[in-house]
């Protein structure tokens, strides 16, 4: 632990220039973008949609990422996801029937605040509810997604097919309702809270240390652009995964409890992060780390 403390001090990890004390989401957004523009003056705004690969110092990783993107590994899982999306339910309806515009060009508004249900809704939730409502009995609808990797990956592949229909659309999150702002503030509080044995907050790795390589083989992404590549495929995992699974793994990496897939806490963190990526184009599914 002492070694880590020394390492952190050497890397200049503090609470972060942007103390969590802004007045409202819009001000947060302005300060957030300004922080990264100052930190990486040569990186264009849209580049942040591509994870840490466009950051200075990441050129070696960027070349490999370009090699993978010539024929991305996630194409296999995505093909399976498209099949699930297109296959009719027992009653003859399809996933497209549950969504506005047949599911096309709407993912940029996810996750969203459902004022009627008074909760944040993610694409995974809407997809699963759609299937259940129409009599589907796929395993991933009832499996324990914390333990059943096969089912969770099926859900990730379906969600990837859904996001693919909105590729290139720019993130736009509606926080006009008070409930939405409350959920956003809860997500923000969690994002800035230190946790785990390593005592890191999301902000420490993804703002202070963004662009650095932790431990020699864990390059750290900037928080700006975090969610737009998900569901994504990590090289080591060799499969598409959900953003909640990435959040869980992150928590394990700082030696904290991974938490539960689909938890309200993760929905709120996802809402917070996605709002702060407003204006960036969706790239999901993508190769990420």
């Amino acid at each position, binding site marked *: 632990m002492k070694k880590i403390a020394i390492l952190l001090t050497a890397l200049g990890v503090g609470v972060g220039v942007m103390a969590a004390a802004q007045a409202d989401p819009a001000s947060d957004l302005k300060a957030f973008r300004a922080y990264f523009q100052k930190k990486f003056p040569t990186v264009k705004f849209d580049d942040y949609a591509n994870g840490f690969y466009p950051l200075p110092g990441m050129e*070696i*990783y960027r*070349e*490999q*990422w370009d*090699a*993978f993107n010539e024929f991305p*590994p996630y194409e296999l899982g995505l093909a399976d996801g498209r099949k699930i999306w297109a296959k009719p339910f027992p009653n003859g309806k399809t996933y497209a029937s549950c969504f506005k515009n047949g599911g096309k060009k709407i993912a940029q508004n996810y996750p969203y605040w459902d004022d009627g249900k008074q909760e944040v809704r993610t694409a995974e939730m809407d997809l699963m509810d759609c299937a259940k409502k129409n009599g589907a009995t796929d395993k991933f609808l009832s499996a324990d997604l914390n333990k059943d990797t096969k089912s969770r990956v099926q859900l990730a592949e379906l969600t990837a097919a859904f996001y693919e229909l909105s590729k290139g659309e720019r993130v736009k999150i509606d926080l006009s309702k008070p409930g939405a702002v409350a959920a956003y503030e809860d997500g923000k509080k969690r994002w800035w809270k230190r946790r785990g044995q390593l005592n890191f907050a999301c902000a420490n790795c993804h703002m202070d240390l963004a662009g650095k*390589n*932790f*431990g*020699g*083989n*864990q390059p750290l992404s900037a928080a700006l652009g975090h969610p737009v590549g998900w569901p994504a495929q990590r*090289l*080591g995992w*060799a499969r598409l995964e959900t953003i909640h699974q990435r959040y869980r*793994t*992150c928590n*394990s*990496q700082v030696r904290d409890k991974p938490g539960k897939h689909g938890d309200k806490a993760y929905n709120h963190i996802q809402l917070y992060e996605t709002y702060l990526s407003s204006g960036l184009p969706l790239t999901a599914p993508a190769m990420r*780390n």
Partner: protein
Amino acid sequence: MHTPRRTFLKGTVALSVAGLAGAAGLVRAPRVEAAEWPKAAYEAKTVDDALKALYGSSQVTASGAIKVKAPPVAENGGVVPVTVSADLPNVDSIAVLVEKNNQPLVTAITMSGADPYYSTFIKMAQTSDVHFVVKSGGKLYSAKATIKVTAGGCGG
């Protein structure tokens, strides 16, 4: 009591295996056929042995006409992109060998019309030299790249 029983069983089993093997044609004379997967080469424990098993020789000459594209540091040792092309005449085979892998031969291509080019993703056990051997006009030429594989830091 035990010994006679064991011998009896051993004898029976041995006979059966040989019988099966003979019937299935598993015990057979070596065939010179391109369609065979060169098991001995893939199980060889050194670069030299693998080349001898694959090409009949491990005599290679370094050549600048072989272009290699490989990352100096692999993002993940299980998925390392490598691309090799050779500006040499009459290339009929290219092999990729990772020196520090337990069994260095990773893959090889044999051309009968395709370009002297090969691209794939390989697994590396640790930091190692990777050799690209090209058979051109009956002779072996090579180039190498050193690829670093770091142990996962915070990597999940």
